[in-house]
């Protein structure tokens, strides 16, 4: 018996997907327009520089584990003149905060355990 040909492999996240982001406006254009306009303004120079904001975005991208954001802000931070060392320190900040957020709940665990224990 001949087996049917395998389906081509499709990954959940693909390189070209980020470029399709504006398509989210198909169903609710007024919301999408508002989001994209606001998003653009967020990354303008302000009290924080574009460079500082890009490093924050890179850290958050890792914290929320968004592959699109990681790609975008890896390039974005390089284009703001960041070094590989600065990029990695930003990832460590994300790791410290997310790791710390887990660990600090050990306080809740201990409180609860104290309550339940003799």
């Amino acid at each position, binding site marked *: 018996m001949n087996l049917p040909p395998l389906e081509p492999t499709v990954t959940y996240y693909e390189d070209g997907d980020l470029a399709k982001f504006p398509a989210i406006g198909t169903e609710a254009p007024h919301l999408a327009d508002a989001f994209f306009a606001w998003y653009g303004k967020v990354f303008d120079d302000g009290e924080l520089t574009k460079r500082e904001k890009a490093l924050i975005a890179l850290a958050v991208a890792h914290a929320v584990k968004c592959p699109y954001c990681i790609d975008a802000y890896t390039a974005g931070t*390089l*284009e*703001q003149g960041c*070094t*590989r*060392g600065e990029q990695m320190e930003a990832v460590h900040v994300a790791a410290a905060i997310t790791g710390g957020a887990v660990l600090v709940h050990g306080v809740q665990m201990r409180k609860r355990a104290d309550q339940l224990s003799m």
Partner: protein
Amino acid sequence: MAPPPAGPLAPAQQLRLLGDAGVPPFAEHLARHAQPALVAGPTTVLQINVGKLCNQRCRHCHVDAGPHQTVQNMAWPTFQACLDVATRLRPPIVDLTGGAPELNPHFRRFVLALRERGVPEIIDRCNLTVLLLGGQDGLGAFLAQQRVHIVASLPAVDAGQTDTQRGDGVFARSIRGLRLLNDLGYGHADSGLRLTLMSNPTGAFLPPAQAGAERRTRDLLARRHGVVFNDLIGLTNMPISRFLEYLIASGNYRAYLAKLSAAFNPAALAGLMCRNTLSVGWDGALYDCDFNQMLELPVAPTASRTIFAYDQALMDGRAIATATHCLGCTAGQGSGCGGATVA
């Protein structure tokens, strides 16, 4: 993804690859923004590529320069023709590039001759490490004595990034070269010896905003290395020659061209260097810019094609030769041998 090239890509191959990059032609970018084709104005910069010989072999080099390039270097009769044109044209700037221009055996003689003819500004595009080479004794002092404006390559204040692009140990030697220049007076505000740093991205991404990069570089070089400079210019990596080969081998080729295309900035057009630069090749052939020179895209057929046949009346108003690589100069803040073209 195209397979990595086996060796240096010939200019015709490069043009074919650029035409097949999946982005609209350069002319279409102009048309979309209702911009006319590029036309040269009066030449204010005579840029002379004195040859491809270099002591480094940088991974982004658009010239394919290196120690192996011992043939394609300017001979004295061609320098003399350049001097004749400089005397007649009286350009405010004569810009010497390469390779490492200082390695041409006629370099110092030519600088002296330009000074004798009263050229207001002579630029030497210096890789910094050449200042430390045996056989180049007194080079820094000579440049200072002749008040040559040095445009020195330093992509990053980071040894890893710099060495990745320019070769192992280049960052440390570049810092030594900068200190040598500082000791001669270069880079100090009131010395009259101008030291400009030139920074290319160390990969397939656009340069940072020039003003911010200058501020950060000034701070880091002063704090970490005690080095000063006058100004910094940022250049976009051109998708030609060795950088094109890197783009293909690393799988970044189409994405980088798409990035340049998406970042096309019509505001960058007014300041393009091809409008006021005449580029001379090692053999005396004329081009609209050093990038066209490496792609062997000559000046328009209506213009003088060599420095030996130079006729100013045929040069101003010539149509500039363009192709897909021109997107490198029109992306984002714009780019050229003078840095960003948009403030």
